[in-house]
């Protein structure tokens, strides 16, 4: 629906990693442009950026596999609260 230009995303992402920290470890976040996510190296968790908004709710985080494969998966759960079953599955 809403197309966000790559330029805007990049500008936002650079800005984001300046002041945002991992909500769990409070350590710095790294921008991963490939997967459009913020990565907390301290605890190897990736947080998605959706519609230009970083999602840093702890349970939005995905534990990184060695190849970063989780982080590069497309997100099907943009509407977090619409899919409660899905939500439950992820948090366990």
């Amino acid at each position, binding site marked *: 629906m809403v197309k966000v230009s790559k330029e805007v995303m990049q500008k936002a992402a650079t*800005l*984001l990693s300046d*002041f*945002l*920290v*991992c*909500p*769990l470890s*409070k350590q710095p*976040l790294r921008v991963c442009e490939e997967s459009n996510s913020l990565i907390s190296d301290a605890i190897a968790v990736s947080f998605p950026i*959706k*519609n*230009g*908004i*970083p*999602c*840093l*709710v*702890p349970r*939005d985080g995905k534990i990184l596999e060695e190849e970063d494969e989780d982080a590069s998966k497309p997100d099907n759960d*943009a*509407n*977090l*609260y*619409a899919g*409660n079953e899905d*939500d*439950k599955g992820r*948090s366990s």
Partner: protein
Amino acid sequence: MAFGTVTKRFGNKLFPALSSTPRLLHSHATSFGFKHVNEEEKARMVGDVFTSVAASYDTMNDLMSAGLHRLWKERLVSMLNPFPGMKHLDVAGGTGDVAFRILDNINRVKQRRLPNAFKVSLESETQIYVCDINPNMLNVGKQRATEKGYGEDGSLVWVEGNAESLSFQNDSMDGYTIAFGIRNVTHIEKVLSEAHRVLKPGGRFLCLELSHVSLPIFKELYDLYSFSVIPRIGEMVAGDRESYQYLVESIRRFPPQEKFASMIADAGFQKVEYENLVGGVVAIHSGLKI
């Protein structure tokens, strides 16, 4: 404001210890309105409420408070005393209501004080972070910002996050506001301690929340309005009676003014004060990190 002060005084005089709200002891059980639910369930149920009402949230606030919520938020922002270049965090403010007011306020200050030459550089420094756990509320806010032309200079930053574990650095904010949000969290203490963590020394914590009315007669009317009228308005306007039933119940569950003030002090804040508006229908609590 005058009404608030007057009712508070009379209330105290007539019934000094009137507080009829049952409170839960802290345990792993938490409350969802009057229902007892476990903690994870509360987070999900509150999420459902706000997903359900996101689109009509501000309209409903207007209807339920007869437009008063605007004045309350104005009061909150004027107590914050925003300044150009400030770093501010507004929690649970997904629809942008408080953030836009802060920006308006800063722009007014700027027009008074500064020659045009400094405008650009200062604008780029002001940063209002809007943090909300609900993506639907954030999307509404982001869209409204675009429509109204707020944040074109990069002064607005939208972040989906949990007030209980914020993703902002220690000592990074000049101000912290939470309006009609803290009542809905699972652990109030965690929210307060996170607020304290992210504020700079000298930073101000301000919380606007629906609170407790103690003046007799007014209290009866308020209860009648809350339990009979509000769920019906919710049903008609937002098409969702349950969410507004939750709203009025959750207000009764929230700690009374004094108790909440002591929780703020326990989180490490100094100079903790509160002000009742409209006889305690809402209260603004404030604290300083020193």
